[in-house]
Structure formats: structure tokens, C-alpha cells
């Protein structure tokens, strides 16, 4: 099965999930809604054959849920427990948004994204900046890999036991190479007409399919149910 979602649907999902994530769940029913909502992008990741990240998210999220509900309570004490509570709190609260964002970034092509932005009449300036951010994720990953190798060779992966150095040794070369690449990238892009005053076109014809409409309705319902039960129920 293959579901190619419209980037607009994905953006809508991010919006809804972010809103729900910012409201605390107070009753078991609300928790249920939240978990249900989180499962959707995980299932979508499975459908896209991104098994590794789907399983990783599932484990992290599931573990944090289990810990929160069965092992931690308000009476728990001790430093380790405190750290654990903090960790679980953050994961349970915000991971759904992260999973959804991850799904969107990994499965959207840049030109699809640009085309969706045009359809929504977002100014080119904003659309291009966001597209460049998407373009940069894999670059940062590549550069970071090379730097980590270089550190391994020098035997300074752990910064001589100094946490600050550890960050410094990673960040300085990374920043330098990202600035360089960014500079060359912009030069190459503007020689091919980026940023002109003509209306940009796109060969990608975006259309909302059945799945898009179903998912949008589903997420609208999730939001409505959550808000109703929490504030009016």
C-alpha cells in the first residue's frame, strides 16, 4: 500500500498535533485520544517503509508511557527518579509533535513542498527559507558524520573529559562548513533564477486525494473532541 499525502495535509497534521500537545491531558479518555493521535504518524512511517525510525519512536514513546503510568507516581523520590520523571514528562508530552514533524520532513520532496506553499499563497521568501532548512538537514548529517570521524581519529571524541570541549570540537568545524556550503549553495541557486520577481511555477500538480480528506477530517475531530472534553465536558 502506498499513500502519498499532500504536503498541506502533513502541515495540517503538524498544526493539530502541536496544539493538542500544548494542552495537558487530564482524564484517561483524553490520554486515549492523544495516544491514538500519535499512532497515526507512526503507522504512516511504517507505510512509507521507514521501519527503523517508526520502531524507534514506538519504543521510546511506549516506554515513557509505561513508566509514567505504572512506575512513577507523585510520591516517588530520589535523584534518579527525578531525572526519569523529567525525561518521561518531556517525551510523553512533546514526542507526538516530533514524530509528526519527522514524518513530514522525511517524506516530503522539496518541490512538492514549494508547490504546496504556492497553492496556499505563502510569500516566496518564507517558502524558500523553509525549503533551504529542509535541504540542509541531510547536509548537516553528512558534515557531522565526517567531523565525528575526524574526532575519532584524533582520539578527542570525549573532549578529554570536558563536556564543553566536546561540544566545541563538534560545533566549530560544523559551523564553518555549513556557512561555506550555504554560501556556495545560494550562489548556485541565484544563478539559476531563484528569487526573481516572476511567479514561480511548479511541474508538480498537487491534488487532495481521498486519504488527505479523511486524515484532515480525522485530525479536525481529534482536536474538536480534545478541546470539548477538556474545557466543556
Amino acid at each position: 500500500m502506498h499513500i502519498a499525502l499532500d504536503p498541506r495535509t502533513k502541515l495540517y497534521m503538524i498544526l493539530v498535533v502541536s496544539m493538542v500537545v500544548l494542552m495537558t491531558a487530564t482524564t484517561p479518555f483524553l490520554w486515549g485520544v492523544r495516544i491514538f493521535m500519535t499512532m497515526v504518524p507512526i503507522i504512516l512511517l511504517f507505510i512509507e517503509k521507514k521501519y527503523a525510525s517508526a520502531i524507534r519512536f514506538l519504543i521510546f514513546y511506549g516506554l515513557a508511557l509505561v513508566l509514567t503510568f505504572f512506575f512513577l507516581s507523585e510520591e516517588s523520590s530520589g535523584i534518579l527518579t527525578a531525572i526519569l520523571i523529567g525525561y518521561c514528562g518531556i517525551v510523553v508530552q512533546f514526542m507526538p509533535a516530533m514524530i509528526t514533524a519527522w514524518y513530514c520532513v522525511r517524506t516530503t520532496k522539496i518541490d512538492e513542498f514549494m508547490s504546496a506553499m504556492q497553492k496556499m499563497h505563502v510569500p516566496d521568501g518564507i517558502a524558500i527559507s523553509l525549503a533551504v532548512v529542509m535541504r540542509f538537514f541531510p547536509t548537516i548529517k553528512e558534515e557531522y558524520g565526517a567531523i565525528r570521524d575526524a574526532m575519532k581519529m584524533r582520539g578527542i571524541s570525549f573532549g578529554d573529559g570536558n563536556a564543553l570541549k566536546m561540544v566545541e570540537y563538534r560545533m566549530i568545524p560544523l559551523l564553518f562548513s555549513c556557512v561555506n556550503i550555504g554560501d556556495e549553495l545560494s550562489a548556485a541557486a541565484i544563478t539559476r533564477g531563484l528569487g526573481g520577481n516572476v511567479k514561480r511555477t511548479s511541474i508538480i500538480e498537487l491534488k487532495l486525494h481521498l486519504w488527505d480528506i479523511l486524515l484532515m477530517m480525522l485530525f479536525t475531530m481529534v482536536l474538536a473532541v480534545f478541546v470539548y472534553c477538556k474545557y466543556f465536558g
Partner: protein
Amino acid sequence: MEKQNSIIEINHVSFKYKGSTEGLLTDVNLSFHQGETVLLWGASGCGKTTILRLINGLIPHYYSGDLEGEVIVDGKNVRETELFNLAGIVGTVFQNPRSQFFSVDTDGEIVFGPENIGLPPEEISKRKDTVVSEMKIERLLNRSLFELSGGEKQKIACASVSALLPEIVLLDEPSSNLDWNAISDLRESIRKWKEEGKTILISEHRLWYVKDLVDRVLYLSEGEVKKEWNGEGFRNLSETEVAELKLRPTSLEEKYIDAFTDDMGQITSKHISEKEGAKSEDSSTRSADKEEKVILSEFCFSYDKKRSRRKLSKCIKDGNKEVCEGLQLCIPNLVLPEGKVIGVIGRNGTGKSTFLRCVCGLEKRCPGSITVSGKTYSGKDRLKLTYMVMQDVNHQLFTDSVKAEVMLSMEKEDEKRCDEILDRLGLLPFKEKHPMALSGGQKQRVAIASAIAAGAKLLLFDEPTSGLDYAHMKQVGDMLRNLAKTGSTILVSTHDPELLALCCDEVIHIESGKLVR
């Protein structure tokens, strides 16, 4: 009459970049005719790239500086024309294949330009299909750009430029990161553009692949055009004349490529293990005297995570003939002379980099071990014995001064030894400078200095001369020789036959992860 034909006019142009004191170009006057192919030739920093930037409008619109005079491209004054209005007229292929992409997938990249200038979608699709079939890149479609080799990326870059149907194509050292096969493909792209009657300007250090294509050659030095030949005259230049200009020879690479291609034809029939045996016997009989050896054994590796270190090692010990099947690297045994420079050659994506990564211990799943002076290093110990100078040295400079960089590698900080090492590499005057403020070659030497400080005996270089002009390439060659004289063993992976000729004592050839020479 000549005036009518010329598509690019550069009149009395002087330019210097913002922040630099010296003028880079001084009173340059050039004109290029429609349909002409011109090579810009000269050492690094001679102003080749600056001239290209004047024509594609990056100067003065993107890189600012003091610009005098005027540049007219296709009847438009570049200074008064917005960059996006030049996009359909001038196309540029840049040096670094990694950083000239806007998209992450190949299809999006090819249509990027036409989309920007607002062509109707049907027209864009038509252009895309034409370009794809003309350049024969069907198999590259619908792929992630990050998975492609340098040569493939450069092909997509050419296609992306082609899709805008520019009258003028500029190429800024396009071959720097390419192997010989990829360069031949690049030559075909240029030939096709030439047949279509486009005006082509190429700035390049490597001359052999363009010399049959060019109609005119300009030799630049210190921001001025010093010499000019027509195509015929250029092809007839003798090797001594070329050498006098301190430039790369026009024919040397071709000789090497012929030699290597023949070689590749022969090896297919022979079984690899026989070849291996022959190789180690051969080199041990040849240098049976007191010379010390570096022995590499069990250098096998697969990106498949199931093929663990132990499994690979066992396969080799059992003498399993099938062991090499499906491995990215399979070199069961290799003997190298100590204190020599050894060139590692082979096509892009054929296992050279994997080999170097395994030797220096970055790939944990490689069971390989290195024996030097009777002592065997494997696993993590390889990291201490070896040091790799990466192609992009910016990745391996971490501190805020050259001195700190060297000291970081020492187990005990020893300023005297640090000075010694820096002096040997000619870096003493830069001791307190920030490594990122140095030139490319100096950075490379800083990386080497820290390798020496760490006590590495086996130094690995990944493409140390890509994009360098002849003088700088020669410097690197001399430096490698000197390092070898002081007892280090050097493995250098390269596409640069001139470097091989200049400094390598031995050459090993890797093809599909196997040793063939």
C-alpha cells in the same frame, strides 16, 4: 562586424573583492564570440573564477567589491541587470558537486531553474524529457542527490543548467572532484553544448580533456591576460613550453588513462586470489633486502551489518573462495614497503575511500590488522597508528590556533617538539594563527602536523590535490616525499596522474573493492 558577433564584452574592468587590498583584476578587456569555446587557464588566484563571476552576474550582485568598467552580456549591462534576468542567458556549472544543489532529489533539481523563471509546467516537462534523453541520465532520475557519486552529481548539475537553455555556459573547474570516467562524460556534455552553438567558457587546471574542444585559450596571470592562443596553436604547444608556464601538462593524464584501461581489461579473467598471491610474492622478492614492511591483512568490509567482524575474519582464515562476493572491500593480504609513498587509484565509488577508512580504523566492522616493525595493530589500535588527512580538511581542525591544534594531538604537551614539527612543515610563522584563516594548502599541513604529533606512522591522504593547480600540486608531492623520507609510510588515494608520476614509489589499483595491481 566583429562587434556584432560578440556575445560577451568585458571593457576596462578592474575589480577587487571587499576587504582585500590588492586588485584582483586590472583593466581587463575581453570579448567572446557567439558559439566559441574558450579555455581560461592560469594558476590559482589568477582571476579565472572572478571573470566567470563577472559574466554570470555574481559580481557585483552577490560578491561585492570595487568594480570599474562594464560587462555586457547578450546586449545587457550586467551591473544594471538583475541576476534572475541573466538566469535564462548564462548557465554556470560550479566546482563543488556537493554544494550546488537546491533540491534533494534529481528530478526536482533538473526542473529547478525553469520553475524559477516561471515557465508553464508543460514546457518544463518537455524540456526535462529532452535534456534527460540527450544526456542519457534516465537511470539517475527519481533518486536522492545525496546518494550519487561526484560524477553523477556533476551530470545532474549539467542537466540542470541545460534545462534553462542558456546561450552561454560557464564551467568553473568542473573536473576537480571527478575521476577519469566522469571527466569523459563531462567532456561529452561540453561537446554537445558546443554542437548546439552555445558560447562556452571553461576555467580549468586539467587540460587534457578540453584541449580538443577549445577554439581559443587565454592564459591569465596576476589578473591580466598574458598570452593567447587559438585552438591549433594551443594543441601544438610543446611540453617544455607548458612546463615553463608552471601549468599542468596537456597529455600526461591521457597516457595514464590508456595504461590503466588496458590493465582493467586484462584482469577480469584472472581469479583474484591468484592475483593476491602473485602480488605479495612479487613484492617480497623485489624488495627482499633489509627494507622494513608494512603488512595489511584481512582488510575486508561490507556495509551489510550482518557481516560482522568475526564472521569476515573466519571466512578469510578458512580460505573460502566465495568470501569476496558481495563485499565492498576485500583485500586479504597486502605488503607495502615502509617509508614509501604508495598511490591508491581506482574509479569513484569503487572502494578507495572505504579502504582508507578501514585502514585507519574508522570502520569497526573491518577485521583488518596492520603489522609494522613486528608489531600488530588491530581494532582501535589502528586509530593510533594511522592518521587520515581528509579531502575536506576543514572537518579536522578543531582549535583556535595552529599551536593548540598540534598540542591537542600530543599525549604530553611539549612546546619544543611542537615547534620542531611546525618548522619542518614551514608552519612556524603561523603558530598563533587561527587554522581557519589559513589557505587550503596550509590547513592541509596543519592536519599533517597534528598527525605527526600524534605519532602516526602510517599517513593516509584522501585526494589531497583535487582542485589544485600545478604549483600547489607539486608542493603537495614534495611534501609527501619528505614525509616518507622521515620514515612515515604514506598511502595516497588520488585521481591525479601527475601526482602519481611526481611522488609515488608504488601504485595499487582498487576496482570493486578488490586489488588489481
